[in-house]
């Protein structure tokens, strides 16, 4: 009987890559069996059972189909992620997944836009799309040069990288939105994939809509079961579950998600506006 994706695998941290001051990538062994092979855009539920005990969804940032490895990139933003950042090689976490849908590939020339740690699912998509021979332009955005993620990896796989920093320390000076407007002046794309802070994605969405470029956006919400039943991650107004119908939504879907770029709900269900 194949192992259910809902079954925990207690996994040793095999390697830790310090990506930036606040972002680390944790590498785990992961048997690439039928049903367990992650697709670009999917996420894992990461269970910490020592110290800070909790479990959160985290984007998969590395899919090593040949060496049976996955990477999960985590930004230190609170108590839970801080606890994980303090773990060392050999420490263990519980993993279940992969969950959710994935980015699709439509057309031959694709614009991939990632902001901050949002580059995690973008990076797996870019590598996958490059393997399929697609031409990929990547806008990799962050506050400053040291916070740019995966530049070498993406360069190595043959994507064209357009960095973009708020402070101008690397590449374009300004926001990802501006860089996007900029790049669209020179190039046409068959589609785009986007992941980053929702306020950034909202801006990008408006720009891509104006440019009539269909895109897919990766969303994040507070999650409990990740199996599609608790209802915690359901979106207004369609009710779609980020863990099942998402986390990737198309432009057409985003139009129906009225909370996109506006608000999200916390663990108790109370709304918080951006």
């Amino acid at each position, binding site marked *: 009987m194949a192992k259910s994706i809902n079954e925990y695998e207690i996994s040793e941290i095999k390697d830790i890559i310090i990506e930036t001051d606040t972002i680390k990538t944790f590498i785990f062994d992961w048997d690439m069996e039928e049903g367990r092979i992650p697709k670009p855009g999917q996420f894992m539920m990461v269970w910490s059972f020592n110290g800070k005990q909790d479990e959160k969804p985290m984007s998969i940032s590395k899919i090593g189909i040949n060496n049976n490895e996955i990477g999960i990139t985590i930004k230190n933003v609170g108590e839970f992620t801080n606890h994980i950042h303090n773990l060392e090689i050999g420490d*263990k976490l519980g993993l279940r997944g992969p969950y959710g849908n994935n980015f699709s590939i439509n057309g031959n020339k694709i614009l991939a836009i990632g902001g901050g740690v949002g580059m995690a699912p973008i990076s797996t998509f870019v590598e996958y799309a490059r393997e399929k021979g697609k031409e990929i332009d990547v806008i990799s955005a962050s506050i400053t040069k040291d916070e740019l993620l995966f530049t070498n990896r993406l360069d190595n796989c043959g994507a064209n990288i357009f960095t973009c920093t708020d402070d101008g320390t690397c590449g374009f000076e300004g926001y990802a939105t501006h860089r996007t407007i900029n790049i669209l002046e020179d190039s046409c794309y068959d589609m785009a994939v986007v992941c980053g802070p929702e306020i950034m994605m909202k801006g990008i969405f408006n720009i891509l809509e104006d440019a009539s470029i269909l895109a897919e956006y990766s969303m994040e919400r507070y999650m409990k079961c990740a199996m599609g039943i608790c209802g915690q991650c359901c979106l207004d*107004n369609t*009710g779609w*579950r980020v863990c099942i119908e998402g986390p990737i939504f198309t432009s057409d879907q985003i139009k129906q998600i009225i909370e996109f770029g506006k608000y999200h*709900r916390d663990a108790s*269900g*109370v*709304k918080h506006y951006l």
Partner: protein
Amino acid sequence: MLKTKLCGHRLNNPLLLAAGVMGSNASSMNWILESGAAGVVTKSFSKEANKGYNNPTTVEVTGGIINAIGLSSPGVESFKEELKKINKDVNGNTKNNGKIAIASIYGSNPEEFSFVSSEIEDLVDMIELNISCPHAMKGCGAAIGQDPNLTYKIVSKVKNSVKIPIIAKLTPNVTDIGEIAISAENGGADALTLINSLGPGMKIDITTGRPILHNKFGGMSGPAIKPIALKHVYNVYESVNIPIIGVGGIRNYADVIEFLYAGSSAVQIGTSILYDGPSIFNKINNDLGDFIKSSDFSSIKEMIGIAHRN
């Protein structure tokens, strides 16, 4: 052909969404209604906001799941916003469409139950009293539903506070569910929902030696609990005169039929959404319609309780 009635409400079919599943906001509940359910029961809420337990709150087991969400909810004031949108038209009026909205509420004493009930009475069609959650905080949930006197007090207090029908949802985790059912009926319950999740149960991770759920224990639901839910419906049907809403492990039309035969007037579906998604409602309605067409029955009503005939 699938039409039926529950506490004076006309229902397009006997299928309702169970409390605690995709019931945290109006959007997901409206989706469920569009997917064929004749009604939805909200996730349980109370007076104050409650974040529930840390994750893991849900773990899959053979034949279902165990969960200890811990009654997370935004509190009645916030949740009214959602209630105003469930099955309502653009003017905020309830659609007259054979579908109903049921609010599931919890509390730690009769006053809290009645306060919350009064607050939301105008926004829903019925109220389900969750006196049976097996993973509630101390004093809430199953601690009530295991005590016939407290059950009576809460049900009667709410009954005297609101005009809409009230349902008591009972826990199976008692020596004698019949006693509790009669207390609820005597307290004035207009219907009973049987059963809340079973156990509770637990799962221990064999690598770490830890209980997986943060709360260690959680209520079990899913197809595995169906035989036990069915038996409680069958038994309680013989002791009370109010309608019973059957819930526990329903995954297909045959399960629905079993619950109707045992004495349920309607049923709730929850955990099986894990396997089949919201489309389970339309699927079951279609299959149930086909069954009735090929049977000697001409209505849902005729099917209720026939297992007692033999």
